């Protein structure tokens, strides 16, 4: 190894250390922002030292980096906080496709690969391709450009299994004779692109937190495989860190829905809706803004329980305003957040942070449930399945066993809802018929604005 190559590799060690410190600092809200900076500095260092390598074609590098930075910055600063899940999916897909392109370019330049390198090059292209089209489908579903419900086609499992087997066969063929089988490599790429689509399209909108986490992990593993292809440690270290973090998030999300990963990936959950009239029935008690105002006004403690509906209605700012008014009124205000509320892990936390809700008011499910009996009022905003008591009581329910925020145990529950349509899981919610529940129908944002007007009118 030449001296300059040696220096570059030592700089990579420093980058790797910065990534690790950065991730570690991300584990506390107080240090998270600096952690992200530390990790960005690690990346910058790696990029800068790489540019000192000999024989680089700078005009193409400059072109690529200028275009990429411009698109990345514009996208990052223009995106609405409610659209964060699809933005993360999009960026993720781009990371995947760049691993694919890198492996392809390396192979095109040096077709004489050893068996090991041929296998990791195929893996890099394959995982990168799945990440790319899978993320694009996730992006489409999250931004409602394609229907977000699970799309099931007949023979789906057989098709997916056939795709996987043919990919494995192609990889084997290719690894045995990479110089002469350029076409097979292209076929592997095509298969991966198709597989990304067929594996994500059957997964419904509310399962997206799992899918995004998993795709996040794939993009890391693709980078890792690319690192094996070019024999570069920093790609392997950084890729493996991301791969591990994605796997952990995936596991947390699955646990929060009480489902196995294979169940999420292969069952097309939510595609089967129960027959009408099935499930709990009873009388619902609608409430007007004035009724809700009197209930809230008299409460000592109020817990808001946000769900995806809050994001759709963009109601995070008005919710915080209402929370502030309640606090001025001497009420204790909390925001109870279910781990899978929304469309990506931590989605609700980001929205409420955007509305300036301090993070010490955000309460996790496991912290609020034990003291739920002492909460005066729970205000459920656009959440449904994550507060459905059937998950605890009804063994025949498809969400049975999923941990929920037990709002039905609060003294009063106010449910803000557009209509009586069932939630994503397609099951009616017994909470709405409970003795202590009041339904407050309407668009979440407009409904909360009406409450704020009531509060202000009474001063």
């Amino acid at each position, binding site marked *: 190894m030449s001296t300059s190559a040696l220096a570059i590799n030592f700089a990579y060690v420093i980058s790797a250390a910065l990534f690790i410190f950065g991730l570690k600092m991300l584990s506390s809200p107080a240090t998270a922002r600096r952690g992200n900076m530390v990790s960005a500095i690690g990346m910058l260092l790696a990029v800068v030292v790489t540019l000192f390598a000999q024989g680089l074609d700078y005009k193409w590098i400059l072109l690529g980096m200028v275009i990429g930075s411009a698109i990345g910055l514009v996208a990052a600063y223009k995106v609405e906080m409610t659209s964060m899940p699809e933005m993360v999916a999009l960026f993720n897909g781009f990371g995947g496709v760049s691993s694919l392109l890198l492996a392809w370019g390396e192979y095109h330049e040096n077709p004489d690969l050893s068996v090991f390198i041929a296998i990791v090059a195929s893996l890099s292209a394959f995982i990168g391709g799945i990440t790319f089209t899978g993320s694009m489908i996730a992006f489409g579903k999250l931004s409602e450009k394609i229907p977000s419900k699970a799309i099931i086609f007949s023979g789906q499992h057989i098709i997916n299994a056939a795709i996987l087997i043919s990919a494995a066969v192609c990889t084997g063929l290719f690894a045995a004779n990479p110089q002469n089988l350029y076409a097979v490599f292209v076929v592997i790429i095509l298969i991966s692109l198709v597989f990304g689509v067929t594996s994500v399209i059957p997964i419904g909108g509310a399962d997206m937190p799992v899918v995004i986490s998993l795709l996040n992990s794939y993009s890391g593993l693709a980078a890792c495989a690319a*690192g094996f292809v070019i024999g570069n440690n920093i790609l392997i270290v950084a890729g493996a860190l991301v791969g591990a973090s994605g796997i952990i998030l995936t596991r947390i999300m699955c646990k929060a829905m009480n489902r196995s990963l294979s169940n999420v990936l292969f069952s097309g959950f939510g595609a089967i809706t129960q027959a009408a009239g099935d499930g709990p029935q009873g009388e619902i008690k609608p409430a007007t803004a004035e009724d809700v105002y009197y209930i809230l006004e008299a409460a000592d403690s109020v817990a808001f329980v946000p769900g995806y509906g809050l994001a759709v209605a963009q109601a995070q700012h008005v919710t915080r305003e209402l929370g502030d008014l309640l606090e001025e009124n001497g009420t204790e205000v909390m925001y109870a957040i279910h781990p899978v509320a929304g469309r990506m892990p931590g989605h609700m936390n980001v929205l409420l942070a955007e509305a300036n809700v301090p993070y010490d008011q955000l309460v996790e499910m496991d912290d609020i449930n034990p003291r739920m009996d002492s909460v005066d009022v729970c205000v459920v905003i656009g959440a449904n399945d994550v507060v459905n008591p059937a998950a605890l009581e009804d063994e025949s329910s498809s969400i049975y066993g999923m941990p929920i925020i037990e709002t039905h145990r609060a003294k009063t529950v106010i449910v803000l809802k557009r209509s009586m349509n069932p939630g994503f899981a397609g099951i009616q919610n017994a909470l709405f018929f409970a003795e202590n529940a009041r339904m407050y129908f309407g668009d979440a944002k407009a409904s909360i604005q009406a409450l704020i007007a009531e509060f202000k009118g009474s001063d």
Partner: protein
Amino acid sequence: MDAVFLTFVFVLTIFLGFELISKVPSTLHTPLMSGSNAISGITLIGALASLQTDNHFFATVLGTLAVIFATINVVGGYAVTNRMLEMFKKKDDGGAK
């Protein structure tokens, strides 16, 4: 480099990753995801190094595209994560301003 050595690095890093991430609270899951997503744009390093002056034209095209996509991933990922984390405030440092 030696395949065994690289695999060694890979396996140890996976374990390190599990240790690091399992401590992140759920409040920070979104920034964690977008921040780690930015790190996965590390492919940029490989893409930069692959753009040699003596490349075939097609390899140069592939490399340049790889640089573009990886840069979007890196720059966009860090910027958006920073934007999100900027909003996370504690009550006593003036949460509602």
